[in-house]
C-alpha cells in the first residue's frame, strides 16, 4: 500500500494512537521509546490536581525511570494480568511554542480479567507536550489526569 501523506496534526495524533496501542497490545517495552530521553511522565489524581497538590501516583523523571517501571513490572512485581483497552477521544493540538506542541485528549480504559469479564477501569485526560526531534513526534511530557481517583485496587500498566 502506498504511503499516505500526513499532516503534522495527524502525525502528532498518531503518536497518541501508537501510545495506547503499545499498552493495549502488551508491547510495554515500546512504551518508553515514544518519549524523548529528557521527559516527564506523571499520573495525577484529579482530587489532588484540582487542589494544586503535588503528589503524583506515578512519577517518572527521564526515560530511565519509564524503562525501570516496565522492567520491575515484568520481572519483580506480583499481579494478575488483565488486558487493557484504551478508548481515546477529543485529541486536539491546542497550542504550540518553540517547537513544543501542547496536546489534549480524553481517554477511558477497560480491563478484561483472565475469565473474560470486562469492567470500566478509569476515565481521565491527557495533557501532553510533544516535540519532533529528527522528524518523528515524541512525548516531552505526558500528564495523565485521573478522574477515577478512587483507584479500582491498583494501577499496574501505564495509563
Amino acid at each position, binding site marked *: 500500500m502506498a504511503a499516505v501523506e500526513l499532516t503534522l496534526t495527524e502525525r502528532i495524533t498518531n503518536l497518541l494512537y501508537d501510545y495506547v496501542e503499545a499498552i493495549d497490545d502488551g508491547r510495554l517495552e515500546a512504551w518508553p521509546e515514544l518519549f524523548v530521553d529528557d521527559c516527564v511522565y506523571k499520573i495525577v489524581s484529579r482530587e489532588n490536581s484540582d487542589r494544586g497538590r503535588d503528589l503524583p501516583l506515578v512519577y517518572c523523571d527521564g526515560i530511565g525511570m519509564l524503562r525501570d517501571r516496565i522492567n520491575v513490572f515484568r520481572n*519483580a512485581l506480583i499481579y494478575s494480568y488483565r488486558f487493557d483497552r484504551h478508548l481515546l477521544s477529543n485529541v486536539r493540538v491546542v497550542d504550540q511554542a518553540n517547537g513544543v506542541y501542547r496536546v489534549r485528549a480524553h481517554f477511558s480504559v477497560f480491563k478484561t480479567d483472565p475469565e473474560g469479564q470486562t469492567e470500566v477501569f478509569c476515565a481521565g485526560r491527557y495533557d501532553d507536550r510533544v516535540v519532533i526531534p529528527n522528524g518523528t513526534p515524541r512525548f516531552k511530557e505526558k500528564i495523565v489526569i485521573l478522574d477515577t*481517583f478512587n483507584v479500582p485496587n491498583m494501577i499496574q500498566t501505564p495509563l
Partner: protein
Amino acid sequence: MQHPDEIKWPKADFSRVPLSVFNNADVFAREMERVFQGPVWNYLCLEAEIPNAGDYVVVYVGDKPVVVDRADDGSVHAFENRCAHKGTKLVRHNQGNVKNHTCIYHHWCYDLSGKLIGVPFQRGYDGKSGMPATFDKADHGLTTLEVATYGGVVFGSYRRDVEPLESYLDKPMRDYIDLTLGRPVEVLGYWRQRIPGNWKFYFENLMDSYHAGLLHQFQATFGISRSTQRGGSHMDKLKRHRIIYVHYGSDDTQAAKAGYGDAKVIDDTLKLNDTRMIEFIDEFRDGRSILMMTLFPNGFFQRLSNTLAARQIRPKSADEFELHWTVFGYQGDDPDLRQRRLLQNNMIGPAGLVSIEDGEVGALIQDVLGANPTANTVIEMGGTGPIVDPDSPLTEIPVRGFWRYYCHLMGFEPEGGAAWRP
C-alpha cells in the same frame, strides 16, 4: 451464613482464624458496632489537614462517613455526616472551609461543633405554624464523637467511657508520633484505592512482617526491607497495635541470599537505570529504612525510606474496603528532599512498586472464599506461645495479638478454652 453467635474461635492461642469471618455480612455488621464503635480510638486525620477555623475533611469510621472540623476556638470536632432532621448527607465535598454546616434540604444549620443553631421558620410565619413550643434545638444536634488529639493526629471514639487516648496508644506509639509528627507537616496529597478484600486481611497484613521480605520482591532486592535485616518491634500493653523497624544496610546481600535459600526473592540481575527512587537518606539519623506503626482498628503510619504517609482503613462491606492515604512531608523540606520524597512515592500507593502487591493478595484471598468457607488460616511463625514483642521480623505473633483483641470485642470465645480478658 453462620450467625455471629454461632462462631467459636478454633484455638485459644489465636493461631487459627476461621476464613468465614472474612465474608460474612452479619459479622461485618457486628464489627461496625463492636469494633469501630467500641471502646477504641479510631484514627481520623492529621491536624495539618484542618489548620484553620472552619476547615473540614470527611473521613470514615468503619463504614460511617464522619466530618472532622476545627471550630473558631481552635478545638477539633467530629460528627456523623448526617442531618439530624431527615438524615440527609450534610457535607457534600471531601474537604473545604465553612462558617457553619447547613443542610441543603430544609436549611437546618449547625455550628462547627455540631450543635443545631438554626431552624428556618421555627416560629412559623405570620402567626401560623412553626415548631411546637417543646421543640428544643439542644435536643437535635449532630451525632458527635469523642475527639482527642496526640502530636497532631486526630482520633475519634463513639464511646464516652473510652480510656484516655494516651493510655490507649501506650508509650511506644506515642514515641513514634513524637518522632514522626513532632514537626510541622505538609500534606503533599491523597490517594485512594478500592481493594476487593476484607478489611481484616489488610490489618493482618500490616501486623505481619513475615510477608514483607517475601511478597515484596522489589524492596527485598534493593535492601529496603529484608527478612534478614536487623530490626525490632514494639507493641502496646494489650498487643493490638504494633511498631516495626528495620535497619538499612544491616545485612550482607550474599548472606541474605543464603538465608532465603530456595525462596528466590533477591534478584541481583534486576538493575535500575535511575536509582533516585531507592536512594535512602537518613534524615532521622536512626538508620531505619522502615518504621511502621499499626494502630487498632483503622490506622497505619508509614516511614518507608523517605516516604511518609498515614493510611486509613475504610471498610465498605465484608468484601471490600477503601484504603485512604494521606502522604506528607515536612514544612521547610528543601527542594531536593521534597523531590526525593515525590520520586520515592513511586514505591507506595495504588501504583506503588512495593504496595500494590498487598492489594493483589487481598483480592486473591477474597476471590476463593466461596459462600461458606470452612477452613482456618494458620498463624504459627514465631511460635504459638505468649503474645509478646517479637525478636525477629520473621514473625506472626503480632497477628495473633490483633485477633485476640478482635475476638474480645466481638465476643468470639475459643473452643475448649477460657476467653481472654484484658
